[in-house]
């Protein structure tokens, strides 16, 4: 199909491989800046945590399966839902989307690495620090127990003794710094490392989605870091930010938290829009319908998402007219989301769809996510939300949105790009079984929660009295969740089995339209032998592909292009493996962990950080060579 899928015997490929490969062994593992390796460990970590947090959910479902059970005491239950929510939101959903971007963005751009390779490594190590920050204390029974949003004063110094709340707050700082690092990297890569010819108007929707999600991350995350840092300050150095009798305001925390918290939901959902668009395009065998409408709706979501955080706070007693404004803003977001749904179905309609597993996940996504979107419209209404908020209706709603809207597309994306990552196909039979179990189990488990919420069951209760009539549906919900968990295990088994025994395939098993399918499967360390050129949205569906030459073979170089038109402007040296991202992450970890015990950690902890960063940025290379490039065919 393409001139670039050169054979392994090619000496040029061998030389590039030699230039871009990591040192062998443990040293290579610790120093790698290969975006594929970093993304792979990111993804494996998030999937492992997804499993752990899923088990916590199962434990809670068992506790709730009948009224008045005693298998968990309130402390354990509170710890479980706090750990479940915090892990799923901060350590699974957001990082896994960034990880997918780290893996896919350079490949989809025909590039050899991210714009800031070491920042990607730093991002992972710091994220791992956040994971350990939450889960190691859990192993020694110091678990945050106040939910995934720890409202003061409950999380303040008087009502939350010990370090449980600090651990939660600092885990957020970890993961948010990691997420900021990843987002800056992704945004920069998409803006400056596009292949020649890929103007903004010819950029695949996945890249648009990741660009928007990254920019949203950059704007949203500082708010929550501010909120949690103020909380730590209240707890550690007795400031009064959230103490009403000291002149502070308990609501301030909620505003800051949700100013991040609502965009967060879209930071998770928007990448899924990218997955779905890519899958639909490939399996409908036609370009996506309504590309411009899709791009505009993603942008609209990215902007609107910042204007509706108050819909999480309708019950706190804000002025009613203000609430109505946020109702209108929240409902407006249904328009771009509805347009996206239409465009996907229209693409299926206008194409000739093939129902492989990734496509099944898209169908499961549409059926499930639209329910979540519509229940979102209901909760967006300020007066109605007064009945719905903080009940199981909300629990059902956000699981439909997050699992149906983000995890289903993610699983589809996993199946879709799996052959690219491993060179092997996943089993379709096991894949279909996992799909049926997960989608069926999920809907069986979570649909009843809408009704439970309407029957008055509040969320975050560790038990409920027998007379409330909530027992039967809770039992159904537990059974559904168990089915979904079994489906999840089948999915993992399929991934593992296929890793060793799946059918071997070539570069492009699905006939995909975008550049990543031009690389070998699995991609070599340098991804592509040549710099590919693009002149349409679906370059690989053209008869022939143009390619550039001219990047060095003996050192790491990448081609930088202009932001709008993707005109080549210069070759940039790309940095090689380094231990300093890991060392910097360790130094930052020391600072963060220390600062929940003493404010002085900020002072002495800054010293190792400064040392590590100095070594990281120590100039070791000549200036990048500049000048115009010749176009070769």
């Amino acid at each position, binding site marked *: 199909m393409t001139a670039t899928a050169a054979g392994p015997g090619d000496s040029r490929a061998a030389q590039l491989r030699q230039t871009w490969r990591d040192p062998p062994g443990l040293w290579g593992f610790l120093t790698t800046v290969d975006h594929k390796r970093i993304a792979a460990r990111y993804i494996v970590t998030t999937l492992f945590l997804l499993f752990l947090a899923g088990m916590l959910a199962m434990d809670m479902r068992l506790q709730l399966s009948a009224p008045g059970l005693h298998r968990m005491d309130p402390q354990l239950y509170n710890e479980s839902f706090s750990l479940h929510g915090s892990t799923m939101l901060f350590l699974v959903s957001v990082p896994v989307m960034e990880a997918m971007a780290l893996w896919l963005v350079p490949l989809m751009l025909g590039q050899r690495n991210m714009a800031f390779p070491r920042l990607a490594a730093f991002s992972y190590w710091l994220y791992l620090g956040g994971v350990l920050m939450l889960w190691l204390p859990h192993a020694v029974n110091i678990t945050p127990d106040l939910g995934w949003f720890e409202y003061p004063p409950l999380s303040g110094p008087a009502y939350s003794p010990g370090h449980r709340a600090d651990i939660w707050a600092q885990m957020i700082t970890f993961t948010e710094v990691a997420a900021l690092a990843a987002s800056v990297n992704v945004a920069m890569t998409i803006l400056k490392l596009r292949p020649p010819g890929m103007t903004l108007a010819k950029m695949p929707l996945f890249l648009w989605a990741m660009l928007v999600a990254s920019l949203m991350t950059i704007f949203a995350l500082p708010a929550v870091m501010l909120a949690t840092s103020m909380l730590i300050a209240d707890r550690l150095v007795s400031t009064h930010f959230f*103490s009403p009798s000291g002149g502070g305001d308990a609501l301030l925390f909620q505003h800051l938290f949700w100013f991040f918290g609502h965009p967060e939901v879209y930071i998770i959902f928007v990448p899924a829009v990218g997955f779905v668009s890519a899958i639909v395009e490939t399996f409908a065998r036609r370009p996506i319908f309504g590309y411009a409408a899709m791009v505009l709706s993603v942008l609209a979501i990215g902007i609107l998402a910042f204007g509706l955080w108050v819909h999480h706070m309708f019950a706190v007693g804000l002025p009613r007219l203000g609430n109505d404004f946020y109702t209108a803003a929240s409902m407006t977001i249904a328009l771009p989301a509805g347009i996206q749904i239409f465009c996907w179905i229209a693409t299926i309609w206008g194409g000739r769809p093939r129902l492989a597993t990734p496509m099944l996940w898209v169908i499961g996504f549409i059926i499930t996510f639209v329910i979540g979107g519509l229940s979102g419209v209901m909760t967006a209404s300020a007066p109605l939300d007064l009945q719905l908020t903080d009940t199981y209706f909300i629990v059902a709603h956000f699981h439909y949105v997050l699992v149906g809207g983000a995890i289903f597309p993610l699983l589809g994306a996993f199946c879709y790009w799996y052959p690219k990552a491993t060179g092997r196909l996943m089993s379709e039979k096991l894949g279909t079984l996992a799909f049926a179990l997960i989608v069926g189990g999920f809907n069986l488990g979570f649909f009843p929660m809408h009704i439970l919420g309407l029957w008055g069951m509040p969320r975050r209760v560790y038990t409920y009295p027998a007379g409330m009539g909530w027992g039967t549906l809770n039992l159904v919900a537990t059974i559904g969740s168990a089915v979904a968990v079994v489906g999840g295990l089948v999915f993992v088994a399929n991934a593992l089995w296929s890793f060793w025994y799946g059918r071997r395939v070539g570069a492009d098993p699905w006939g995909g339209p975008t550049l990543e399918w031009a690389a070998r499967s699995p991609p070599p360390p340098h991804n592509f032998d040549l710099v590919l050129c693009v002149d349409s949205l679906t370059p690989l569906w053209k008869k022939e592909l143009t390619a550039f030459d001219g990047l060095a073979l003996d050192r790491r170089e990448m081609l930088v292009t202009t932001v709008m038109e993707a005109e080549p402007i210069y070759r940039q040296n790309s940095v090689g493996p380094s231990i300093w991202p890991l060392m910097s992450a360790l130094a930052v970890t020391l600072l963060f962990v220390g600062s929940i015990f003493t404010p002085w950690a900020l002072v002495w902890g800054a010293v190792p950080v400064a040392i590590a960063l100095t070594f990281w940025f120590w100039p070791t290379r000549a200036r990048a060579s500049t000048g115009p490039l010749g176009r070769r065919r």
Partner: protein
Amino acid sequence: MAEPMERHWLQMPCRHILLACMLFSMPTLPACSRESRSLGPGQPQTPPSGFADPRITYFEDNLYQTAQGGRYFSWYGCAACHGTEARGERDLIAVQLRHSPSFVDVYASIAHHRGVSFGHDGMIPTEQLWQLAAYVRSLRALKREQRRRQDLDQAGEPQAMSWSGTVR
């Protein structure tokens, strides 16, 4: 080149992660009994048997029990005389620094306290006496502004026979 890169990340990280876990968990290990929360019945029914009573260490170290003690300290009106602004013999921090009384002494002085209004002997259940004593002992390590900050959060809590109303 001989071996695909993808094998590494499945096999290599295990050792590394284990190592990191061990390093990371060291500072948290001693903290685990401090943070534990034991709910439900089965709390102490008798006063401390002596200086070596093992329950003393548990109560003094446990942050949950200490915090509960702080709550009852305010509920029982202790803060009216022994609050943040207390001076002289009523300043529990100063008294402790001066005389360094043991847990048993503190417990006994609360249990047999002869305050302005009433004695506490037999009125405060044993478990709360343990918690109160643990709280009073913990005051030594609490900075004055930290104590004041906690009072701010608890400004709406009732104190013995008076309640100034909810937090405004």
